[in-house]
Every structure is written in C-alpha cells, then in structure tokens.
C-alpha cells in the first residue's frame, strides 16, 4: 500500500473499469422514480431527515433575515451615493493624506515598504477588523458545513459520495513534483511575510501564498498526511492565539500612541528585518491567520471537516 509504484498499478487497474457505465447504472437506480426502493435507500440517507422547527419561528427567521439583508443593502447603497463622483473636478486625486504618508512614513515607522505602515499602523484598526472578518468567515463556514459531533457516519458518506473518487491517490508523479514545489512555495510565503516591512508583500499576501502551499500539499498527498498536523484543535488554538496576540499588540500600540508614551518597539534601521517597530510581528500574526483560514475554508468546502 505504501509503495508508490504498487499504488500506481492499483490506480491504473482501477481505472480500467468500465467506470462510465457503472456510474450511469448507479444514476439510473437512484433516480426518484425508479421502482427499486431498496436500491434507492442509500442515496436518500445522504439527506437525512432532521427535526423541524415550528413553522411560525421558521417564518419569523426567514422574514427577519430578509429584512436585515435589505436594510444592509440600503445602507450600503446610501453610502455609495454619497461618494464623490468618479473623475469629477472636486475629487481629490492625491489627497493630503497620501502626501503625509509619503513624507512621514519612513520617519515615523522606519519601514521601507510604505504600504505596510499604512495598513498595519496608520490604519491598523481597519486591518484588525479585517483579520477578524476572515476568522469569522471560517467560523461561519464551519458552523454551516461541519457535521454534528453525533453524526459519526457523515465523513464516511462524504468519502463515499464525494468527488474525490475520480482523483488519483498516492500519485507517483504528483508526489515527486510536490516534494520540490511545496517546500519552495511555503518558504516563499515565509519570505514574503518576514520581508513585509522592507519590500512589497506582508501578512495578507504571504499568508495567501502559504495557504496555497498547504492546499497544494493537501491535494497531492491526500487527507491522511495533512490531517496529522492540521486538525481542528490546531486551527482553533493557533488562529485564536494569533488573533489574540495581534489584538494585544494593537492595543499596546494604540495606548502608547494616544498617550505619547515611548513604545518598546523602536523604528530601527530602515532596510533590516527588525525595523519598522511592531510591523514584523503584526505581519507574522496576520499571515498565520490568513494561511490557516485559507486552508480551513478549502478543506471545509472540500470534505466538510478537517
């Protein structure tokens, strides 16, 4: 089983099955109007009956969600109508804010990359919210897609009816390529994160690269090896820690900045890794959250669990 050549042989042998006809006959049997009641049963068990809520509360939920969505849409449209017109004469092409950033960014923060202090320091509150939005998105998807803890057979069904039937497992060529590419991608992501304060990049882009590398690892080597180090417990602990530390660092930043206290994170020498105050640490936290969340979203949509 572990020998890749054997598994490749096994895969080719499996592949020579008249798979199309098999699937077609399966579909025929599972059609609702087919009279084979016993054969149609496993298909039906995929959508198991759940205890329903009372009708009135259900209708209330539906009505209130529609009302909430319409209210949000209205607020957003009203805000958009208040924006200055595109290309208008009174639109500030380059406002004094950007001029301020260009003039004082390096002096204030000591970061060579001017974008990093803008998103992490000047507008740090905004980015703080963004990171939490990512985390909340993953949590919402988890709530929607994860089977209930009591539903032990859900994962089994996901494997049985899932779309990874046609995919190669333990593919020799893929694994040989992945051995070269995946470490390179992960290393490149780490480089982008660590160099976020001196060159283009930062937590979001580097985290996205690392997340893509993790997704690639999952796709190549299958769920088994990936689930050895990426479990729900790891995801919860690491992203909660990163978000908490991020919030803590930002709180310290706000408090010291507002009260004019000297921060322990000095600007440093521009161009070195440990310059730019706390930007390096913030980039690391944001990158961790983004990478883990990308991986979590992929794996949740893919198989409904970690």
């Amino acid at each position: 089983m572990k020998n890749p050549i054997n598994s490749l042989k096994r895969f080719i042998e499996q592949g020579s099955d008249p798979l199309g006809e098999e699937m077609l006959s399966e579909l025929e049997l599972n059609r609702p109007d087919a009279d084979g009641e016993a054969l149609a049963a496993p298909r039906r068990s995929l959508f198991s009956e759940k205890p329903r809520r009372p009708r009135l509360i259900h209708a209330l939920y539906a009505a209130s969600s529609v009302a909430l969505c319409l209210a949000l849409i209205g607020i957003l449209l009203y805000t958009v109508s208040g924006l200055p017109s595109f290309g208008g004469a009174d639109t500030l092409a380059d406002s004094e804010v950007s001029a301020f950033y260009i003039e004082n960014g390096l002096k204030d923060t000591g970061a060579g990359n001017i974008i990093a202090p803008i998103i992490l320091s000047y507008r740090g509150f905004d980015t703080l919210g963004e990171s939490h939005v990512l985390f909340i998105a993953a949590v919402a998807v988890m709530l929607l897609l994860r089977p209930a803890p009591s539903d032990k057979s859900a994962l089994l069904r996901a494997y049985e009816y899932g779309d990874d039937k046609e995919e190669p497992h333990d593919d020799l060529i893929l694994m040989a390529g992945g051995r070269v590419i995946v470490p390179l991608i992960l290393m490149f992501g780490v480089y982008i994160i660590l160099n976020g304060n001196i060159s283009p990049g930062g937590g979001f882009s580097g985290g996205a690269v690392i997340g893509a590398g993790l997704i690639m690892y999952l796709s190549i080597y299958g769920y088994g090896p990936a689930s050895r180090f990426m479990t729900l417990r790891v995801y919860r602990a690491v992203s909660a820690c990163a978000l908490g530390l991020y919030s803590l660092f930002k709180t310290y930043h706000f408090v010291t900045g507002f009260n004019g206290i000297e921060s322990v994170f000095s600007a440093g020498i521009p161009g070195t890794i440990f310059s730019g105050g706390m930007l390096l640490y913030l980039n690391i936290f944001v990158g961790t959250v983004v990478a883990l969340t990308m991986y979590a979203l992929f794996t949740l949509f893919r198989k409904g669990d970690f």
Partner: protein
Amino acid sequence: MPEVIRFILFCALLALGLGFMLSALIGVNRFGFSLNRLHAASVGDTMGLGCIVLACAVKAGLDAVTLKFLLVYAFMLLTSPMSGHLIGLLVYRTDRSISREAGIWKP
C-alpha cells in the same frame, strides 16, 4: 554593433516564441479531443514560453534578472507536466470516447 546583434536576436526569439504560442492557441481551439488539445497546449508551455523567456533574458543581459527569468521557466517546466498528467489521467478515467479517439483498448 553588439547591441544591434542582441536586438536582432531578441526579436527573432520573441517572434519564434510567439509563433509557437500561436500554434498552441490554434491547436487548442481547433482540435476536437481533449488529449489532442493537451498536446497542442504543451507546445506553448515548453517551446513558446522557453523562447520568450530566452528572448527576455537576452534583452536583460546577464545579471540577477536573467536568473529570475530562468526560474520562471524552470517552475513552468516543473508544473506543466504535472497538470498535463492530471488532465490526461482524468480524461483516461472519465472520457468514454477515448477508445474511439485514442485507440486505447478499455475492457
């Protein structure tokens, strides 16, 4: 004079690469069967991109940028066969017209 030769070499390589890309484009759009299309597309990946990258390297001269161009090509050489292999496997496993199109006997 070396500059002129260099420019001519650059133009020739670029034209060659674009020609390969054009052939790949025509092949992908004109062939009917997916494996034939794969064959046509791989011409663009290997020869087309190779010539274009080489042209860019000639234009940029011998420095760190050249190395980056070659890295792009190496990455493409590494990943393109993998995706081609996956597409081929998927076609082999799911396309029912493969025995007629490719002459592969499937029991």
